[in-house]
């Protein structure tokens, strides 16, 4: 009987239910799509998968993308004479793997399949994996249009596979929905271990699935009262045919005229049980006695409450029985509908008194397609890699929202896209996080802080012209660069506009996500490293001063030197093209030097000042190993950081320098740092010895962001950190130590250093431009030993 509904069931029913409205859209097929913007990189596409639901089709494929990357290469000694530059920069073509997921209305399926066939070059592809209730229905069409064999996959298996994939690879995938909060979407941080969890899929029926590991899941229950009940019963009661319209009706209704409430029976609350008067005692309980009709809206609302409460209650009973606290909800009943997310959340809160939170997924609609794709791509073993959401190529949450834009939804060529890039290396947690499961990289959630959001969106928009100019200047020999630069401008401006209205589009909105989105957009239009030439020039210049700086430091007393080293790092950090205040100065006063930078610095006591504690600590035994997350190229790394590294090495502390894997602003990349360090080693025996004896190690962070997410770091870095028994973490710069990680709790000593180069932020923190944050922290006793224990 009842409790059986399954997703599969769901979609099938969903499908037949929509049939009539689908045919109504037939004429839309002739609408011209802008598919070059949508089905991208089809030339190399392979491993197709398709998930056809009741109203939406999701197409997935794997492709390789050729894009430009900036490489640096040391001039060998033979040719060095010809140039006074340390290294050469070249832009090379590189191929990376990308997953494409496109969601569109079923009405467009033929047009889309035609387009795919016309542009498909790769002839190796023989099979398309298919799932969803409509897969059967469209089997013949797909085979005819694409000439591929349709290979059906179990829907639930696909769903779970897709769910595991997004939970593992997309930070801020899951969120809690709070209708009345400042920000409706509260994104969850990625958990080190995503299992076990409960997935409640609300299709036409409900399936409740317990997922214990990548390959182990079990349908532990379900219910026949699901989305199909809302739709079917709702259509009978209100004569409203469309699911979306029913939800709209419900959102306008008053259930209290239809439902019998506790107060209708008790006159008030049922005190001894703590049941408040407004609770529903009997759904539709008043519709039997009343001789009148009810407004459609009220009945729809009552029905929505009845079904949401029932599903929530069952989900809670199953969660309790299996002792699970993470419960994700999906299926067409939930999909992008704030109304149902709200009622389900309400129900879960009610039945568990807050012990269990209802979680939703940003890419819930793609799970089946992702899973089907993964089934077909098993030989490529996509799960051995880490993947990252490409903000440039992805539409973001609710790009097509029935509630926000019902007209658009009604007949639309709106295509929603998700693109994921394969990352070079596997990303893992920094083993030195005090509590990986509660770590939040970002200091301010701009979705919750309207003032900050306003400022930063404005700030990024203001800076856009400069970025475009910089990008153009980086490719002076390429005539089409102007066109690409303009496209970049439009794309990024559009993203900023989207985020202004939907700050939740890509998970938590943060300064980091704004910066990352900009990097993604730059890459999208083949501006892989707009700052390469500037970095090169500054590096060359700074290197000339290195020995002089070291010499003057050597002349100081030990005590003076310790302070001078810190000031040096801070002064170096003033040089940052990413900060408007500085880039203005750099543009107008090219001679702005290291010494001048020192003068700009705030005098002690700094805005945040634990230098005295740090100094005391230095009098003690040396640290075993310091992990240093570095920031900018040029004076920062060469004249600020390297002398400090030198001192640490001299003290007997091993040093691991972590730099970006790929360019972001003027941050020094791992490739550049290799060359710089060798060059410094050539003139500095301490650095040379460090490298030779393997006490100075350069690793890539795995990141290409000006900020830092300590939960997504290169696996090798994590390994080195563990092997070296790292007991000091140094994080430098505004992006890594203030916008992110300011509150990060580490299990070892840590030093966060930055110069605040943004007057708004300085103001907020109670300081002024060029205020200094010097935060030295020692974890509460008991954490050190833990930190070194392998996981």
């Amino acid at each position: 009987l009842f409790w059986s509904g399954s997703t599969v069931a769901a979609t099938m029913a969903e499908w037949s239910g929509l049939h009539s409205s689908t045919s109504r859209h037939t004429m839309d097929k002739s609408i011209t799509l802008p598919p070059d913007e949508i089905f991208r990189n089809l030339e190399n596409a392979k491993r197709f998968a398709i998930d056809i639901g009741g109203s939406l089709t999701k197409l997935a494929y794997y492709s390789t993308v050729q894009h430009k990357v900036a490489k640096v290469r040391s001039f060998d000694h033979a040719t060095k004479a010809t140039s006074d530059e340390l290294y050469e920069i070249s832009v090379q073509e590189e191929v990376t793997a990308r997953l494409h997921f496109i969601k569109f209305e079923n009405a467009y399926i033929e047009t889309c399949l035609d387009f795919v066939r016309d542009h498909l070059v790769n002839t190796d592809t023989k099979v398309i994996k298919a799932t969803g209730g409509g897969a059967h229905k469209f089997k013949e069409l797909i085979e005819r249009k694409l000439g591929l064999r349709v290979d059906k996959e179990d829907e639930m298996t696909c769903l779970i596979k897709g769910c595991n994939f997004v939970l593992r690879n997309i930070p801020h995938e899951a969120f809690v929905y709070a209708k009345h909060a400042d920000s409706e979407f509260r994104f969850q941080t990625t958990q080190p271990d995503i299992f076990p969890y409960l997935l409640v899929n609300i299709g036409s029926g409900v399936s409740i699935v317990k997922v214990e590991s990548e390959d182990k899941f079990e349908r532990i229950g379900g219910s026949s009262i699901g989305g199909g009940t809302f739709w079917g019963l709702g259509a009978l009661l209100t004569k409203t045919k469309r699911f979306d319209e029913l939800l709209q009706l419900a959102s306008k209704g008053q259930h209290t005229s239809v439902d019998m409430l506790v107060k209708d029976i008790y006159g008030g609350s049922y005190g001894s049980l703590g049941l408040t008067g407004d609770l529903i005692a009997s759904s539709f309980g008043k519709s039997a006695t009343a001789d009148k009709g009810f407004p459609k809206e009220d009945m729809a609302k009552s029905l929505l409450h009845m079904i949401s409460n029932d599903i929530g209650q069952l989900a809670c009973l199953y969660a309790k029985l299996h002792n699970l606290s993470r419960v994700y909800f999906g299926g067409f009943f939930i999909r992008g509908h704030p109304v149902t997310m709200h009622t389900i959340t309400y129900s879960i809160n009610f039945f568990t008194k807050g012990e269990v939170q209802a979680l939703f997924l940003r890419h819930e609609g793609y799970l089946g397609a992702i899973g089907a794709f993964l089934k077909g791509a098993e030989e490529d073993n996509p799960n051995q890699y880490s993947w990252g959401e490409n903000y440039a190529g992805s539409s973001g949450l609710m790009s097509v929202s029935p509630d926000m834009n019902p007209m658009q939804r009604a007949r639309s060529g709106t295509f929603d896209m998700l693109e994921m890039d394969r990352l070079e290396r596997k990303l893992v947690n920094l083993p030195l996080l005090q509590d990986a499961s509660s770590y939040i990289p970002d200091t301010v959630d701009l979705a919750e802080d309207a003032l900050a959001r306003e400022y930063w969106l404005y700030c990024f928009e203001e800076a856009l012209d400069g970025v475009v100019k910089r990008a153009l200047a980086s490719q002076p020999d390429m005539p089409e660069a102007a066109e690409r630069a303009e496209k970049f401008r439009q794309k990024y401006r559009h993203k900023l506009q989207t985020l202004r209205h939907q700050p939740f589009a890509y998970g938590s909105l943060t300064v980091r996500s704004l910066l990352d989105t900009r990097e993604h957009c730059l890459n999208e239009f083949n501006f892989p490293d707009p700052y390469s030439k500037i970095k090169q020039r500054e590096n060359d210049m700074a290197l000339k001063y290195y020995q002089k700086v070291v010499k003057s430091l050597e002349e100081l007393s030990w005590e003076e030197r310790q302070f001078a080293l810190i000031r040096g790092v801070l002064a170096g950090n003033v040089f940052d093209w990413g900060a408007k205040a500085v880039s203005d100065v750099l543009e107008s006063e090219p001679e702005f030097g290291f010494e001048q930078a020192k003068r700009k610095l705030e005098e002690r006591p700094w805005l945040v000042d634990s230098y005295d504690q740090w100094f005391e600590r230095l009098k003690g035994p040396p640290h075993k190993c310091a992990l240093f997350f570095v920031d900018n190229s040029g004076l920062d790394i060469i004249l600020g950081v390297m002398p400090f590294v030198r001192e640490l090495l001299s003290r007997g502390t091993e040093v691991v320098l972590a730099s970006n894997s790929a360019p972001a602003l003027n941050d020094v990349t791992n490739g550049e740092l290799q060359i710089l360090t060798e060059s410094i080693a050539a003139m500095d025996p301490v650095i040379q010895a460090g490298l030779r004896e393997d006490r100075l190690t350069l690793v890539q962070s795995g990141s290409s962001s000006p900020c830092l997410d300590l939960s997504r770091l290169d696996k090798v870095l994590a390994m080195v950190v563990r092997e070296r028994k790292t007991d000091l973490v140094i994080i430098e710069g505004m992006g890594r130590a203030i916008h992110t990680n300011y509150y990060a709790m580490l299990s070892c000593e840590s030093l966060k250093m930055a110069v605040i180069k943004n007057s708004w932020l300085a103001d907020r923190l109670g300081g002024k431009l060029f205020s200094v944050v010097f935060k030295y922290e020692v974890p509460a006793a008991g954490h050190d030993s833990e930190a070194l224990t392998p996981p």
Partner: protein
Amino acid sequence: MAFKGHQREDENIDEELTPTKQPRNEPDNEAAAPAGRDASERRSSNSTPRHRSDSVKKTRPPFPWFGMDIGGTLVKLVYFEPKDITAEEEQEEVENLKSIRRYLTSNTAYGKTGIRDVHLELQDLTLCGRTGNLHFIRFPTHDLPAFLQMGRNKHFSSLHTTLCATGGGAYKFESDFRTMADLQLHKLDELDCLIRGVLYIDSVVSSGPSECYYFENPTDPDRCIQKPYTLENPYPLLLVNIGSGVSILAVYSETNYKRVTGTSLGGGTFLGLCCLLTGCSTFEEALEMASQGESTRVDKLVRDIYGGNYERFGLPGWAVASSFGNMMSKDKRESVSKEDLARATLVTITNNIGSITRMCALNENIERVVFVGNFLRVNTLSMKLLAYAMDYWSKGQLKALFLQHEGYFGAVGALLELLHPA
């Protein structure tokens, strides 16, 4: 939102009570917990030992003896008619009392909507040293004003009896009793009364059909038959009261129980939806339609999707995948009958109660489930569905039990309170 219950029934509607309960109004720690809204409170809690004094006569209250349960839909009234009245007593009996006794016992229907369930009458019952018959009467809650008017006309208040009442209406209508009929209600918690009533009735019914029964071979329609059951050692048991809404209690002893949860999808939902979908107006009518309909035309079954069983998850083809799922299609909406819709509504509500009950039984680790409440009155269809669901989905682990006096236990509990104050 949600839950808790009430139910409904027949033409006039009958109601039942439901809500829920939990500890008693004792200063018990948990009861007072602010969060104690619904569901599961951990066991422990409440237990209010109730000593019943048997000092009979002295404490015996004067006649008439009533117990009343005012639910959201129905008022349930039990009345003890003494049959051992001596001539002396007869003479002393005031006219008012006599007239009430005669009125109640000589009719089986009162006004347009009041009904005495004669088949449930318990004869030769000894209560507080007196022997007599226990009568079971119900009428719709919305006719309570007429009832109060009658009490006023018959000068009920002059009898100085205490009117013990439970159910939400005891609270909601307390002032009406006072102002309209000059009657002071003694309000009682409905779940306390419910449990007390169940245990009492089960203990006193010895002759006639067994109070407690179950269905043998519930999964085989041809061999499914009603069989008596002895509730000798009943604890722990899950007590599911299906009124307008539903309350689910875990009972560990007469005084130790908790309300596990409840659902707002109950008898009231069945009747309410049936009225909207079919235009019917009474519980009996709705049931009659349901008995002639076919829910599989309305619901989408597993086999409608998979062509058979969904082997991957062990789901049989006949299982409902989506209640009312076929109604997403316009064509199918136009081809179903009112009877089909009534049947589907009944099946949906009943199975959902079964589903929640089963999960509660698992969570509470209880294997015996007693279903009561007026939703089950003349509703063999639902009882068999519940029996089937409990048995099938628990692979025979769970047993569904039913009681003859379905909806009257709260009223009986209230009467007992009059005679043996807890």
